[in-house]
Structures are given as structure tokens and as C-alpha cells.
């Protein structure tokens, strides 16, 4: 469907149109007898485009290549098409389509904000890790140089060095001590860089707050809609599976662990 929707007639937003487009693209059904009745429904206020879309959803043939499609599958698509049509009408009559449209419009904005956050945090992580990569070798060298010198000084106090060796050790130690401030300064600079890299938190914190507010609004509106549209017996609990990400709030939950100790205890209790 490439033609633009006539907003004045039906009030359908571009987003709802895309929704129906995707249904049309995925559906495949035998033509039902009601197709004739639907094409006479222009007086409902729908644009010609949307009407044609519904007709095309109803009229598409089931492709032979669909592996699990039986004649039952074709019927399901028909009924989905009907339900979609009815849902669309109900939404429009209740005024929810405008609300959903407005809510859907905020999603690209939220996407952008979240991308921004991902970008900022990744940059900060890179900066910090780069600073570590610079500072760590400096620390390692300080450590090994001082250990070597220390070992030689041990020999001084056990009278194992000759005068010449002692003079050489004194010169080396003198040189080492002169280099130390420069190296500690370099490390401090990297520590400051790591500190500064944390400045993302202020910016991302602000953006996160905006996204949370938006999500809250959407949630309230969608819940209102769902509660009105969905019959009581259809509301089922779907199990969440094994890909849940980090536990944000473990309060009241007995199905998660909150520390490595608990992980270890669980594995031990099972004999692993």
C-alpha cells in the first residue's frame, strides 16, 4: 500500500496503516463470502485505501508453499482478518486510535534516546578501558624496576656487593628515583581520565528519566485499552523463559539468586 491515507475521512494514522500493511503481507486465505458485504462498507468512514486493504486481506489465496497450512490455517487467517476489522472499528469508535497513534509516534523518539544512551555508555567504557591499558604497563614497570633494585639492595645489607657494584647500584637507584614522579604523574593522569569518563552518567540519567516517563504513559494507556478489549479468560500468564537479562528487583521473588554465593550453594546442593 503506497498511497497516502486520507486523514480527514477516517482519522487513521500512518502507524495504524503500517500495522494493517503487515497483516496483509503475512496473511493468506481463501476468499470468504463476506467480502462482498465489506466492500459496501464505505459509509463507515474508512478511506478507500483502508477498505481496499481489508478486501485484499480477505481475498488473498493461501500459498501452496506454506508448510504447515491446512484448510484450518486458511480459516484462522480469515477470522483474524475479521477480528482485525472489528477491532479497528471499535478502536475508532472509542477514540483509542488517536491515542495509540500518538503513543506510537513517541516510540521512534524513545528509540533515539535509548540509542544515545547506548552510545554514551559505550564511549565511556572505551575511554576508561583505554586509560587502564595505558596506566597498567606503567604500574607493572614501576613494580618490576623497584623489585629488581630491591633485590640488589638486599645484597648490600648482607654484605654481598663489592664497592664497584654498590656504586653502580647507587647510580641506578638515583636514576630510578628521578623517573618515579614522572611515571606516577602519568598514572594519575589516566586515573583522572577514568574519572572524567564517568561524566556520561549525568547526561544518560536525564535521558533515561524521559524514557521512563514515556514508557509509563504508554503503559497506562495500553493497559486501559487492553483491559477494555480483551475478555477475562484470554488473559493468560506466559512463562518468561531463560533469556531475561539481569534481575532488576529481586524483592518478593524466590525464583532468582542475588549473589555468587547463592549460585555456588545451589550448584552444591544439586551435586555439581
Amino acid at each position, binding site marked *: 500500500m503506497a498511497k497516502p491515507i486520507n486523514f480527514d475521512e477516517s482519522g487513521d494514522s500512518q502507524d495504524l496503516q503500517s500495522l494493517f500493511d503487515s497483516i496483509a503481507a503475512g496473511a493468506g486465505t481463501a476468499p470468504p463470502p463476506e467480502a462482498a458485504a465489506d466492500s459496501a462498507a464505505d459509509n463507515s468512514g474508512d478511506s478507500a485505501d483502508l477498505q481496499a486493504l481489508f478486501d485484499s486481506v480477505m481475498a488473498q489465496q493461501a500459498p501452496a508453499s506454506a508448510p504447515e497450512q491446512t484448510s484450518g490455517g486458511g480459516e484462522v487467517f480469515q477470522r483474524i482478518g475479521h477480528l482485525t476489522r472489528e477491532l479497528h472499528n471499535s478502536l475508532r469508535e472509542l477514540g483509542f486510535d488517536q491515542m495509540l497513534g500518538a503513543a506510537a509516534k513517541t516510540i521512534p523518539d524513545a528509540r533515539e534516546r535509548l540509542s544515545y544512551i547506548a552510545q554514551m555508555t559505550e564511549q565511556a567504557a572505551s575511554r576508561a*578501558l583505554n586509560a*587502564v591499558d595505558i596506566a597498567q604497563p606503567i604500574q607493572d614497570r614501576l613494580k618490576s624496576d623497584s623489585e629488581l633494585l630491591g633485590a640488589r639492595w638486599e645484597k648490600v645489607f648482607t654484605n654481598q656487593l663489592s664497592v664497584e657494584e654498590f656504586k653502580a647500584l647507587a647510580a641506578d637507584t638515583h636514576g630510578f628515583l628521578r623517573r618515579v614522579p614522572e611515571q606516577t604523574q602519568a598514572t594519575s593522569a589516566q586515573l583522572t581520565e577514568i574519572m572524567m569518563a564517568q561524566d556520561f552518567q549525568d547526561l544518560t540519567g536525564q535521558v533515561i528519566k524521559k524514557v521512563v516517563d514515556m514508557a509509563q504513559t504508554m503503559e497506562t494507556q495500553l493497559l486501559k485499552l487492553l483491559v477494555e478489549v480483551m475478555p477475562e479468560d484470554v488473559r493468560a500468564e506466559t512463562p518468561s523463559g*531463560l*533469556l531475561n537479562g539481569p534481575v532488576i528487583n529481586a524483592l518478593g521473588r524466590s*525464583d532468582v*539468586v542475588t549473589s*555468587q554465593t547463592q*549460585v555456588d550453594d545451589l*550448584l552444591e546442593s*544439586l551435586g555439581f
Partner: protein
Amino acid sequence: MADPSKIKFLVVDDFSTMRRIVRNLLKELGYVNADEAEDGAVGLQKLKGGGYDFVVTDWNMPNMDGLQLLKAVRADPALKHLPVLMITAEAKKENIIAAAQSGANGYIVKPFTAATLNEKLAKIFEKLEGTSA
């Protein structure tokens, strides 16, 4: 204990930051030989190429998650002997049990400390040496 620098690790995680952190920690423990993969599918391909001695993997990744990778490793005769340590944010008991039953050698939950990583690696190597001795 074998020379740590000879042991070749594969670090699998979809976040480059985490891969970097794990590699740095391994380096500090003397394990300087480590390669990376950004998901289970790439990881499995690399493993099948041979030469790896240890797998450290995240769970939640695109294309092939950590559990699927673990199962694939255990199902491949050429790879099933490889120790697999999971480092993941997944904290449900269900996850831990599934990993253990699928043959994971260790399970570290994020966020974790360098000390924990060290402890788990040592434990795995200890067990390996016990069986091969």
C-alpha cells in the same frame, strides 16, 4: 599446573566492553592467549577450527545463545572435552540448573569480581587435573 600462557581461551559475549574486561582479567591472571566471538554461532565456528582449550561465555546473545553453544560443544566429539565457564546476568535458578545439567563447568553471575573469576578458573583447572592425572 600447565603454563598459563599456553592455554587458549575463547571469550564469547555480545558486548565488546565485557569481552575486553574478561580478556584483561585473564591477562592479569597470566592467561595471555585469548580470542573473542560476539555470539554463539561465531564462537562455535571458531571452536570447530580447533586450537582452543577453554571457553568463557555469556548466555543472552543473538544468533546462538550461551546455552545453545554449550549444548553444541558437548554434542561435538571433537569439542565435548572443552571446559565451559558461563559468565552471565541470567540469575534465575532455572538458568543455573539448566546450565549445570547441560554440562557447564562453572557459573558466574554478573556483576562479578576478579577474585570470583580467579576462584572459578582455579576450581575448574583443579578438577581437570584430577581427572587427567
